């Protein structure tokens, strides 16, 4: 039996989410390097079309585990269903996106399979034998750790979103669709989803945003975040905040970027009135391009910013908004 490398699918509102495709891309590259088959594992219900479309982006196999109990994501039935299949197919590795769902499911699945798990990896390499080496940030990214799971199988990892290139659609590849029956009793482990409340802003979520505008203590008051929101609306992007702004009660902690907030990997991060404390940098230093606006030329953020503007943000930000609006026109 040829070795298999698995990507576990995450769905939302009937669609396969982009982080899954990023993991699939990584698995494809690993699979090609070691000659292993890449399988997309979709636990769900009525998801075949979405699964097929995603599988076409790099999978050799689509395992479709459909069951009533899998209609909405819950940790326990998903862990059992996937673990049961893994016990049968014995994949070499199982990778998931390090999203909220992935980070909830992977550890439970790893415990069930009695194997090791590398969390929130930013690099995944393989040797010729298919032993994977992962690089992951620890201590909020202050240092990087290289780890591997030398003996236990399957090797498991979650991959940080927006780092790995998503799988490419490959018209030459027709994934084999394997329908799998799941052995799940009704109400496995007594958990029900009562409702899902969408965040009210309607803006893109921070960890998935390509562009983020963020405000800190330099905003001086909560109302001033309006100017950031206007800038964000111009670009169609997310608004973040530093811990200072959240602790002051100006922004919700869901908006917090930093060590005890969210880790973001946007293409462009504009930091306004943020001094650049280590804990904040931990959350955004992997942004591709950082612009900082601060009136203090000694602010630490200027050490990491690609472009730093020393000036009064209350003048700069509106000017930036207008200039950006013009480039879009």
């Amino acid at each position, binding site marked *: 039996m040829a070795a298999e490398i698995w990507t576990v699918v995450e769905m939302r509102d009937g669609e396969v989410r982009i982080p899954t495709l990023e993991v699939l891309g990584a698995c494809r590259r690993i699979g090609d390097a070691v000659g292993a088959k890449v399988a997309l594992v979709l636990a769900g219900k009525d998801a075949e079309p979405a699964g097929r479309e995603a599988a076409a982006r790099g999978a050799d196999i689509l395992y479709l585990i459909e069951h009533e109990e899998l209609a909405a994501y819950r940790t326990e039935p998903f862990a059992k269903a996937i673990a049961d299949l893994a016990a049968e197919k014995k994949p070499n590795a199982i990778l998931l996106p390090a999203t909220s769902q992935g980070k909830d499911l992977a550890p439970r699945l*790893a*415990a069930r399979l009695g194997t*090791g798990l590398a969390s929130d990896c930013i690099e995944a390499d393989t040797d010729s034998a298919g032993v994977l080496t992962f690089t992951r940030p620890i*201590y909020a990214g202050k240092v990087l750790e290289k780890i591997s799971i030398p003996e236990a199988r399957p090797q498991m990892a979650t991959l940080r979103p927006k780092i790995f290139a998503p799988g490419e659609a490959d018209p030459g590849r027709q994934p084999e669709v394997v329908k799998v029956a799941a052995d799940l009793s009704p109400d496995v482990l007594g958990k029900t989803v009562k409702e899902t409340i*969408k965040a009210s802003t309607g803006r893109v979520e921070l960890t998935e945003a390509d562009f983020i505008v963020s405000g800190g203590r330099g905003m001086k008051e909560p109302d001033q975040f309006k100017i950031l929101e206007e800038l964000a609306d111009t670009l169609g992007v997310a608004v973040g905040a530093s811990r200072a702004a959240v602790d002051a009660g100006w922004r919700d902690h869901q908006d917090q970027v930093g*060590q005890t907030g969210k880790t973001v990997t946007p293409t462009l991060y504009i930091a306004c009135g943020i001094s650049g404390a*280590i804990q904040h940098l931990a959350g955004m230093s992997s942004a591709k391009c950082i612009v900082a606006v601060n009136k203090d030329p000694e602010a630490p953020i200027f050490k990491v910013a690609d472009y730093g503007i*020393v000036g009064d943000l209350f003048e700069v930000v509106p000017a*930036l908004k207008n200039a950006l609006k013009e480039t879009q026109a």
Partner: protein
Amino acid sequence: MNIIVCVKHVPDTEAAIKPLPDGSGVATDGLNYVLNPYDEFAVEEAIRIKESGGDSTVTVITVGPEDATKSLRTAIAMGADEGIHLKDPAFLETDAQGTAAILSEAVKTLPYDLILCGKQAVDDDCAQVGPALAERLGIPNVSVVTRMSIESGKVVAHSELEGATQVLECTLPAVLTAQKGLNEPRYPKLPMIMKAKRKEIKILDAAALGMSPEDVAPKAKRLSVSTPPPRRAGRVLEGDVAEVVKETVRLLKEEAKVL
């Protein structure tokens, strides 16, 4: 209600962390260790549940080296009733899955209705122990909880997703991992800090838990530790606002190519 809170003794987030010269690990000499910030939310929640009435006990438990008693005592000073220290040289090298296995062996022997953890430890950032522990105990788990309430033998919890919040209802016992925003942890009162000093902490080693070295050997093995590549220093622009902004936008378009 018997509430168990799993806590970890970790370096202060303000600490400057550097790899050892040989890259085998992190230099820990002279670092100040504290109760993991996410675990503080868990401890606080447990104490609030206890204070809300009924007859509840809060037990804090940790897998950690000698000094970890400090974090247990901090939790006791906040209001936890009992502390258990799972301490053994064999535990020092284990990985997150191993930690969950060790905790489950200890927790299995205790009465529990609710188990709370922080969502992740701020040193290894694995975020695995909560769900893995739940799996080993065969009970449900809810991750990244920003709000929770106990209602007639069940817990209703708000779990954070990307751009949304899921409201889940779960039978007890269950494992919940705490997210920032769940509550505002209290400062321990001085008399309680002094009292916590006298509290006896139960110590259990691998033999007491019936665990062999193989049981706790790490499956995920660390190969090396390094500093991340430094970001290339950027450019600082000063001067007339309109011109600086214009130039920045031009650079974003033409040089960084992000617009």
